[in-house]
C-alpha cells in the first residue's frame, strides 16, 4: 500500500518497543546482552513448536479443513505452552548466571537486579515475537496494493500493527509478573500468566472480526500492565504523587534514601 502505510504500520507496531529500548536498555551493555538472549530463547521455543506442527501437518489429512483447523488450534496452544516453558527456563538460567557473576565480580551487589532482568527478558521475548508476527506483512505493505480483492477486510495492515504492539507490551508485562511470581513462589500467578497468554492467542482466531480480537487484547494488556506495575514496586500513591508533580517535595520532606 505504499511507503506511508509501511512506515505508519512499522511505527505503530514497534514504536513503544523502540522507545523503551532507546531510553532504558541501549545505554547498558549488560541489559542489551540479556535482551538478545531473551529474544534467542523465544526463537528456540518457536523452532521447537514449529517442528512439532510441521510433522503433525505432514502426517495429517491435508484435504480436510476441520482437521487443519484443529491442528492449528493445537499448534497455537502448544506454542504458547512452550514459550512459557522457555520463559521459565530462562529464569532458571538467569538465576544460575547471577550466582556465577557475583562470585566472579569484586562488587558486593548484583550488577543487575532480578526486576530489571524480568523487564529486559520480557522485552526481548516481545521484540522477537513482534518481528516474526509483522515483518512479512510490512514487506507486502510497501507495494501499491491493499488487501481486499478477494473480499478480505481492508484494515488488515493496521490491525496487524496494533496487535503486534499489544503483544510486545504484553510479553514485557508477562515477563515482569512471571519472574516476580517465581521469586515469591506464588504459583497461581504463573497460571494466570499462562492463561492470559492462551486467551490472547486464541482471541486471534476471531480475525477478520478485528474488533473482537483487538479490544479484549488491549483490555488484558492494560490489566496486565497494572499488575506488572504493582509487582515492579509501584503503587497508586506513588503514581498520584508523580502525576501531581509532588514527588520531589515528598522526597525532600522524608529524606528517603535513593
Amino acid at each position, binding site marked *: 500500500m505504499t511507503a506511508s502505510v509501511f512506515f505508519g504500520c512499522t511505527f505503530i507496531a514497534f514504536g513503544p518497543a523502540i522507545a523503551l529500548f532507546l531510553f532504558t536498555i541501549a545505554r547498558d551493555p549488560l541489559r542489551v546482552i540479556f535482551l538478545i538472549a531473551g529474544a534467542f530463547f523465544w526463537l528456540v521455543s518457536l523452532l521447537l513448536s514449529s517442528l512439532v506442527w510441521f510433522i503433525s501437518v505432514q502426517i495429517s489429512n491435508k484435504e480436510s479443513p476441520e482437521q487443519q483447523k484443529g491442528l492449528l488450534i493445537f499448534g497455537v496452544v502448544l506454542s504458547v505452552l512452550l514459550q512459557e516453558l522457555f520463559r521459565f527456563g530462562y529464569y532458571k538460567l538467569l538465576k544460575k548466571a547471577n550466582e556465577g557473576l557475583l562470585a566472579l565480580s569484586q562488587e558486593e551487589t548484583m550488577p543487575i537486579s532480578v526486576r530489571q532482568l524480568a523487564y529486559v527478558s520480557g522485552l526481548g521475548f516481545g521484540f522477537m515475537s513482534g518481528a516474526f508476527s509483522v515483518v*512479512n506483512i510490512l514487506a507486502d505493505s510497501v507495494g501499491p496494493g491493499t488487501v481486499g480483492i478477494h473480499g478480505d477486510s481492508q484494515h488488515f495492515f493496521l490491525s496487524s500493527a496494533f496487535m503486534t504492539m499489544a503483544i510486545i507490551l504484553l510479553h514485557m508485562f508477562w515477563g515482569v509478573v512471571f519472574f516476580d511470581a517465581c521469586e515469591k513462589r506464588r504459583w497461581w500467578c504463573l497460571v494466570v500468566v499462562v492463561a492470559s497468554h492462551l486467551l490472547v492467542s486464541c482471541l486471534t482466531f476471531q480475525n477478520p472480526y478485528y474488533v473482537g480480537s483487538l479490544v479484549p487484547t488491549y483490555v488484558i494488556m492494560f490489566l496486565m500492565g497494572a499488575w506488572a506495575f504493582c509487582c515492579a514496586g509501584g503503587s497508586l500513591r506513588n503514581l498520584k504523587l508523580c502525576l501531581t508533580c509532588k514527588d520531589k517535595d515528598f522526597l525532600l520532606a522524608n529524606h528517603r534514601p535513593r
Partner: protein
Amino acid sequence: MGSIPTQWITPLLLWGLFRAVSGSSVEQKIYVNLNDTAPCVRLLNGTHQIGCQSSLAGDVGVIHFLESEEDLPWVLTSGPSPPYMVVLEAPLFTRSVMMKLNNGSSRIAGVAVVIPSSSPAQGFSPHTTCPNENTGLYSESYDPSMAHCNTTVWNPLGNGLSYEQFNFPMFSLKDDNGTEVIRQCYLEHNRVVNGSAPGYPLCAMQLSSHMHAVTDTVTCMRRSEGSAFSLSQDKVCDALSNYNVWSSTKSLNNTAKGHKDNETIVIAAARLDSRAFFHGVSLGAEGSASGFITLLAAAAALANITRENPPPRTETFDYIGSSRMVYDMETDNFAIDLDNVHSLVEIGQVGLHNVSGLWLHSDPVSRRNDAVDKEVKSLMDTFQSVATNLNLSLGLPDVSQPLPPASFQRFLRAQPIPGLVLTDHRSHFTNRFFESMYDNAEYLNLTYPADLSPEERFTHVTDTARGLTEVATLVARALYKQAGGAEEWLASIQADSQTVAQLLYGFLVQTRNPWFEAIIPPEDQYLLMPSPPEYYVGVHGSTNNTASSLVYYVLANLTGTALNISRDNCTKREFTDDTESTHMNSYMWVQGVTPPNATEPVSYCVRSTARISRAESPAFLLKDYRSSNFSTWTESRWIRIGARIFLVAGPDLEMLTLGVGVAVLLASLLLTYVINSKADFLFSSGREPANATY
C-alpha cells in the same frame, strides 16, 4: 482461512506448507496476477521509436472500462482519481480513440485491450496504408508518380497504430477467466452510480513493460557497443534479424560465392514473417503463411525435376530478408549473384483467391525496357496457359499499376530482372486484417469438423488446402515451363493436397504433429509445441526462429533424399572432396518415425540443397544506423513484463495510517522518557533493601 494467529508460525511457513508455493500468503491476498497477456514493446529505427513504454516499476492506474468514445472525457478530464488504466473492448481499439488517449497521457496510466475470440467484421489492420513505402522500389528517383502509394493504396484499412509511439504501457488480454475477474472487480468497486464518483478502495491494475532503449537505433547502438558479449546486460537493443531459407533443385556450391558461369536461375520467393501490434501474437495466415506454404508445396512438386530456387524470407520491417540477400548477391557473399538470375516469381498473399481470384502483378517501369518486357510477357503467357489447363481464373491488373509490397521490389532496385508477383488481390489487399492478430487460421476458413481428434485434424484436407494446392500446382508447372522444361512432363507435376493440409495444420494450428516430429533432428524437438509458431521477426539469440527452422526442415524433407548412411557419416561430411560434400549439399540427421512394435524412432540422414542464411539488415553490417536504403529496425531489451490487479486504498487512509504511526512513536518516546526519569521514585515502594541480592 481468515485468521492470522500472530503468536504462531509466520504466515509464510503456514501457507508454504499447505500449498508449497513460493510467494507469501499476504501477497496472494493482495494481488491477482494476470497470465495470458501480450505486451506492446518498443522498436526503433534510424530516426524514430515506436511502441510503448512503462515506468521502471510499472504503472498503476484505476481501472475504467471504456464504454464508448463519448465516455472518454471521464478518463481524460473529469474523473476524480487519475491516473486511469483504460480497458478497451476490441471495437473501440481504433485510431481516433488511441490518439485521444495518447494526447491525454498524463492522466492515463496504460491501456489494456480485450481480445475477443472472433474477428471484427469491418476489418482491422494496425499497419500503415502503404507498407514499406520508404525502402521499396518506388521512390522519388525511380518513379515519383508511383511513390508513396500515389497510384494504388495497398492497405486502405490500415490505421498505422503499430507505428505510433505511446507513452504508456499497452497490454492485450484474452477474453477469458482472467478478464472476468477484472470485470467483477470493476463492477464491485469502480462503477459510477448515478453520476457520483465511486469511493475508495478502487480496483486498480499495474502494467510493467519497461523498455531500455530510447530515441532511435543510432543512440541505442552507440550505447550498446563496447560490450564484449552479445547477451551482456549492457546492451539496450538488438537488431531485428532472422533467417532466410533457400534451396535449389540442382546442387550449388555454397562455399564458392559469387557469380557462377553457365548457371541461370529462376527464383521463386515468398514471405515468411508477420507482425501484430502486440508482441507474440502474430500469425499472418493470409499475409504470409498462405504464400510460403504454397511455395513449399510447389517445391515439393518440382523436386528432382528442374532448376529453381525457392527462398522464403522475412519482409515486414522494410524488407530485411530480401535486402540482405540482394546485398549478399551484390557483394559476392552468396552462392550466386544477380547476373545469374534469369527471372523471379514471387508468391504473395494467395489464401483468399477463391473469393477474389488470382492476379499477376508486374513492374511497369522496368517493363519500359523491351527485353525485360518481352520476358515478362512470355512469363505471363506461360502462367496463363497453365492456368487455363487447370481451370483457374488468372487475371492481369492494369499495366500501369505498380508492384504491391513484395521482396521482388528489392531485387529490382538492384537490377532490372523480369518477374511477376502472384496474389489474390487485384489492386488493394483482399486481406482485411493485414499484419494484425486477427489474421489467423480462422480467417483462412481453416476449420475442422468438431468431432475430429488432433491426429485426424492433422490429415483432414480442408477446402482451403485444396485451393492452395491448385495454386501450388499452377506455380510449379509455370516455373517448370519457364525454366525450359518439356511440355509432356507438365501434366505429371501436381502438388499434393495432403502435404498442403499437413503444412497448414503444422504452421497455423500446432507444430506438434507426427510429420514434424519425424523430419526434425532429435535435439530440436523442443520446437514442437501445442500451438502455432511465432512469426514475428525477433532478434538473434531469442527463440523466434522456430518458424524459419521448421520451414528449413520441411524444405529439406520435401526436396531432399533420404540416405542410408550412419550418423557419423551424415554429420561429418565437410571433409569429403567429392561432389557429395557439404559444399554442394546440406546434410541433416532427422528423428524419423517410430515403427510399430518399437520404442525408439528410426533416425536417418537427409541430403538436400536447402540452406539457411542469416537475414540481418545490411545496415548493421555496414554500421550505417541512419541508412535510408536498408532497414534499421531494432527491438529494445527489457527485464520484466507483467500485469496484475489489486485494490488501492484512498490517499487519506494512507496518510491517516502514517499520522497514527508517527503519533504513536512520539507519544511512546515521550512517555518512556518521563517514566524513565521518575523511575526511581515510581518503583520505590516495596523495594528490597539496597544491599540484598535476591
